[in-house]
């Protein structure tokens, strides 16, 4: 790995570790019932958000789903305000009105997440329309799962973005399942990228657990979008380690095998980039340890921040209905 790439790779690994440690600590405290809000954890998929967002600026728009913590963190969202929102506190990024599935930080271009499957996909296309009219190099990015491509509104959005040549990157994180149902039980042609390509898209497929592969493919795609204003589609294959919702592994329900979860745990995206960095330069080992130490403090602080923040008082209930 050349020096310049290794700096980028360290940045990506730092983001991945921030997401991993945040999610793992969150999983750890979820059973305490300090908050009731359901959480959809991103553990195992960190490479995708981290590597795509490494190519974005605060001016670029990002939209996400029910599984949004990773995207928010990768876009540079504030950890304290995220943890506080999950705890439904007044200091949360949505003032405690939304919880885990409804987060925002416009200051870094993380516009919104939604709990409705595919809900933010057309919205992200709308942001691309704004970007196109502003005629700068801004782009919009929609993150979503394979499940979202079951919805009609996904295909409507794909068509419109291509038709009007809008600067948007669609990022499909194909983790093989929509809750309990595998893609094979939901789609006649399971090659999502191939289907999208028939709309005239340049479709990029990547191993979603290989951060550097995602990074370089997303980089090429995003540079193309900025230059041409034409949309692109990235399908990254991955797997969620934990339950669809909550901190367990969902092994008791019978829709996935322990063997498969273990296989994917073995393909840990963090371990891969970590080893690549250490192979390049032994000194990176210490650097990574430093980074990890720093992040553990950040995450512990965010939990403390959330715990010591007040829940919204009753008079906040109407806040934000209209402007």
């Amino acid at each position, binding site marked *: 790995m050349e020096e310049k790439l290794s700096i980028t790779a360290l940045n990506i690994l730092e983001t991945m570790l921030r997401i991993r440690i945040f999610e793992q600590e969150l999983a750890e405290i979820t059973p305490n019932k300090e908050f009731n809000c359901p959480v959809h954890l991103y553990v195992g998929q960190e490479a995708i958000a981290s590597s795509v967002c490494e190519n974005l600026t605060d001016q670029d728009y990002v939209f996400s789903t029910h599984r949004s913590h990773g995207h928010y963190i990768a876009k540079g969202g504030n950890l304290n305000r995220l943890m506080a929102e999950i705890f439904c506190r007044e200091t949360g990024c949505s003032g405690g009105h939304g919880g885990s*599935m409804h987060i925002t930080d416009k200051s870094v271009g993380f516009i919104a997440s939604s709990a409705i499957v595919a809900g933010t996909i057309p919205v992200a296309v709308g942001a691309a329309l704004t970007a196109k009219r502003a005629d700068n190099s801004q782009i919009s990015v929609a993150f979503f799962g394979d499940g979202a491509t079951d919805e009609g509104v996904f295909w409507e959005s794909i068509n419109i973005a291509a038709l009007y040549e809008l600067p948007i990157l669609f990022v499909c994180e194909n983790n093989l399942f*929509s809750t309990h149902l595998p893609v094979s039980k939901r789609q006649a042609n399971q090659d999502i990228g191939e289907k999208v390509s028939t709309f005239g898209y340049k479709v990029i497929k990547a191993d979603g657990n290989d951060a550097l592969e995602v990074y370089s493919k997303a980089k090429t795609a995003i540079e193309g979008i900025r230059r041409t204003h034409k949309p692109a589609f990235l399908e990254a294959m991955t797997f969620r380690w934990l339950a669809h919702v909550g901190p367990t592994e969902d092994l008791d329900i019978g829709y996935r095998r322990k063997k498969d979860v273990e296989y994917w745990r073995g393909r840990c995206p963090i371990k891969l980039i970590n080893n690549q960095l250490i192979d390049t330069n032994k000194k990176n080992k210490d650097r990574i340890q430093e980074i990890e130490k720093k992040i553990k403090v950040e995450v512990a602080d965010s939990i403390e921040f959330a715990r010591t923040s007040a829940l*919204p008082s009753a008079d906040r209930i109407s806040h934000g209905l209209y402007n």
Partner: protein
Amino acid sequence: MEKDDSVFQIGVGINTPWFVGQTMNGLLDRFSEERMIDTPVSENGVMGIAVGAAATGSRPIVTFPRMDFMHYAMDQLVNHAAFFNYTLGGNLPIPLTIRAMINRGGEQASQHSQALQSVFMHIPGLKVVMPSDPYDAKGMLLAAIEDNNPVLFIDDRWLYAEEEEVPADYFTSPLEGAKRLEEGKDVSLVASSYMVKEAKEAYAELKKKNISVELIDLRSISPLDTETIALSVRKTGRLVIVDGGWKTGGISAEIAAVISADCHSDLKKPVIRLGLPDLPAPAAKTLESVYYPNSSTVISAVQHMI
């Protein structure tokens, strides 16, 4: 499903225990994937497919594990399921059951909390029922399946812990008609679905305070049995309506309008309407606790009226 082979179930997530609150347990084993169709996340398509199956001799039951996801299905439900038969001159009955669950609380926020009965009550061509007890839950669901129209059967997960002896055999209970649960002379109290449970608690508390409440369970929202309510109001002269949905333009507004016209000279006090404030559901538990009406809300409204 045993009785009638044309009945099948379809919907997003129907074969997972966690989506449907254990209410489909064992059905997949008994009826196989052929009659228990767990679909892609494609609500509007699924709704339309059910309409088509119903138009051609099947009796589908479409389940929405949360009403919130029905917004995607609105076009097929309203423009097609509800209007087809009328618009096609009565030539295309749509014998369709839509089972929609209200699943709220637990800091799930606005998109995982909705109780949309009033939206659907507005749609001509749909029947909308909301049972409050196990007997009606079974009887009205079976009646909905037998009915030759689209019937929206709304069940509230906050009622899933309720227990009552119900006949083990097949039976139906009518899809229309309110039910007087308690006789009283001071105030008529009208509720539906989960709010009946809160209203029953209020009834018991108020009885201790010597306030005699006549309690009415709506059971059906469309058609709405205003006659049973009017009969009660002519006696009590006072009406409190409590609904688990938004207040503005909702069930309580409709009832209040009908009763103020039909019972104008009987009313001793203006009608009181209780419902959700006109806000999307907030997440934080402190806000949830002021957002949802409960038995205390009902008790103070009734006391205020007396």
